[in-house]
């Protein structure tokens, strides 16, 4: 078993004494510079890695360390989607397009600075609805302009439906917006007509196949223009069973051919209470297993993003957490100055931590390749607070990160959201049943701590929970578990 860690994630997250933090980091054994194992994936150029390594949405590796924030400054939209209801607003809902307060560009500036002062992980500012950042352009422009002036090293990022994108590509490139997400749900307007009831384009409302034909052409044009300018693009596709699920294989092919950097297939979120067309007409979203099956079929095409949490349009924090409620308008000071100290100190620590993590990943991959039994794979759920480690109590987990261990190594394949089982001293059986249901297909759960009762109940459901790998890197823990499961036992038996 690996030595206990020298830097706990808590030490990275808590309000800290920076000198002590630096000392710990320095004594952390294998720093990235000395260890020589870059976190950069082998199939990526150094230039691209440099641009995405701090962006939690573009790099699975980065999402363990870095946080994004969204500001809802551009509420006007030029299309209607059947999964969106523009009148919806709830502080307890966590999904795209939902927001509790819209901000003016000046309020957004104050909010971003306040967050940058308090959340050292902050690396990305995104404008991601509600509304369309390219269509409601003046507010997008004013917000980015103000932030670039105050916090020049925050990455600027937008999400768009693509309809107005071709008109804004040059200005985006001029403002150093290096990451653009386009939601592309179809490349066939016949299918588009089932997703988009109307678009507003060139001063009129278009409906039916004609609307989707225009949207499709503008999306492809925008993507090609961004690729030509070297802007990194992520394509978000909402998987709608029976409407575009099979079709997304075709979408993946089209966007790959046009230089998309990442493809993110997300499950439709549909509920009558949300008041969306799909919610009201009973269109269901895919199950976790259906989503993974489609994602697996897309492997080998445009690179897939599997760590998306479908966050709110005003989310703040690491993916999977939302600290937005700490930074609502009424809590923002009138005047606020940016202080880069926390972010700078955090970056130093992450640089050394992620070197260690990369080395641990490589070691785990090597161990698994030695131990791997052809065709034997398993899904492992990890309870984590971040940092890529097994460091959350089972009962406190709001989500589990899912890794697949096979002869290919240990690969992050997604997450499952759950309600925390622990209610402060006692657990709810009904909640545990829901957790077990959410863990469909998973054989093992790794966490920092778990009580006997939930452990036994998981076991009865065929899921083995363990705290034996507490505080280790997920890959290290899973590599050891894999060897133990598939190889260790028989070998020991022979010996």
């Amino acid at each position, binding site marked *: 078993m690996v030595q206990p860690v020298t830097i706990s994630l808590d030490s990275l997250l808590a309000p800290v004494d920076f000198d002590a933090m630096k000392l710990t980091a320095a004594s952390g054994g294998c720093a990235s510079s000395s260890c020589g194992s870059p976190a950069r994936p082998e199939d990526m150029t150094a230039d691209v890695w440099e641009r995405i390594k701090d962006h939690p949405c573009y790099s699975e590796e980065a999402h363990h360390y870095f946080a994004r924030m969204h500001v809802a400054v551009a509420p*006007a*939209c*030029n299309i*209607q989607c059947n999964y969106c209801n523009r*009148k919806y607003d709830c502080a307890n809902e966590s999904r795209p397009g939902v927001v509790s307060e*819209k901000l003016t560009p000046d309020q957004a500036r104050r909010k971003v600075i306040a967050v940058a002062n308090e959340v050292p992980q902050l690396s990305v500012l995104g404008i991601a609805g509600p509304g369309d950042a390219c269509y*409601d352009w003046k507010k997008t422009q004013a917000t980015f302009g103000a932030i670039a002036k105050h916090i020049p090293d925050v990455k600027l990022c937008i999400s768009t439906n693509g309809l107005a994108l071709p008109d804004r590509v040059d200005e985006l490139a001029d403002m150093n917006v290096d990451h653009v997400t386009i939601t592309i749900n179809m490349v066939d307007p016949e299918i588009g007509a089932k997703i988009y009831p109307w678009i507003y384009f060139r*001063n*009129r409302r278009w409906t039916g196949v004609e609307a989707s034909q225009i949207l499709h052409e503008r999306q492809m044009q925008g993507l090609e223009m961004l690729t030509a300018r070297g802007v990194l693009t992520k394509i978000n596709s909402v998987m709608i069973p029976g409407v575009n699920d099979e079709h997304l294989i075709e979408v993946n092919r089209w966007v790959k051919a046009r230089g998309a950097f990442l493809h993110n297939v997300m499950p439709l979120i549909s509920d009558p209470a949300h008041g969306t067309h799909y919610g009201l007409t009973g269109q269901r979203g895919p199950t976790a297993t259906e989503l993974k099956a489609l994602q697996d079929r897309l492997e080998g095409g445009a690179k897939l993003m599997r760590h998306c949490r479908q966050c709110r349009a005003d989310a703040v924090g690491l993916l999977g957490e939302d600290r937005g409620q700490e930074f609502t308008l009424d809590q923002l000071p009138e005047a606020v100055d940016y202080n880069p100290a926390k972010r700078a100190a955090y970056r130093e620590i992450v640089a050394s931590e992620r070197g260690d993590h990369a080395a641990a990943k490589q070691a785990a991959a090597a161990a698994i390749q030695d131990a791997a039994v052809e065709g034997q794979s398993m899904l492992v759920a990890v309870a984590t607070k971040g940092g890529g480690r097994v460091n959350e109590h089972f009962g406190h987990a709001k989500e589990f990160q899912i890794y697949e261990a096979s002869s290919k190594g240990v690969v992050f394949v997604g997450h499952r959201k759950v309600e925390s089982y622990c209610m402060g001293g006692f657990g709810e059986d009904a909640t545990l049943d829901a957790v077990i249901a959410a863990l469909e297909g998973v054989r093992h759960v790794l966490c920092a701590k778990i009580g006997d009762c939930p452990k036994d109940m998981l076991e009865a459901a065929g899921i083995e929970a363990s705290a034996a790998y507490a505080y280790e890197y997920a890959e290290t823990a899973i590599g050891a578990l894999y060897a133990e499961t598939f190889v260790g036992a028989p070998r020991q038996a022979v010996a």
Partner: protein
Amino acid sequence: MAYKIIASQCTACSACEFECPTGAIKFKNDTYIIDPKICTECEGHFDTQQCANVCPVPKTCVKV
């Protein structure tokens, strides 16, 4: 001859404000309102009313 916005339905997304060709729409008391003295129902500019075309909520920008 004018259009109006049903305030209880309005999401205050602001799209109508910048699509209005005559500048008749302003933000006031948490919602957008159309000045009937300025609104021309887009006559002379467009064949259809821009506020009603872009509004995300059905039957919210309507004829007075």
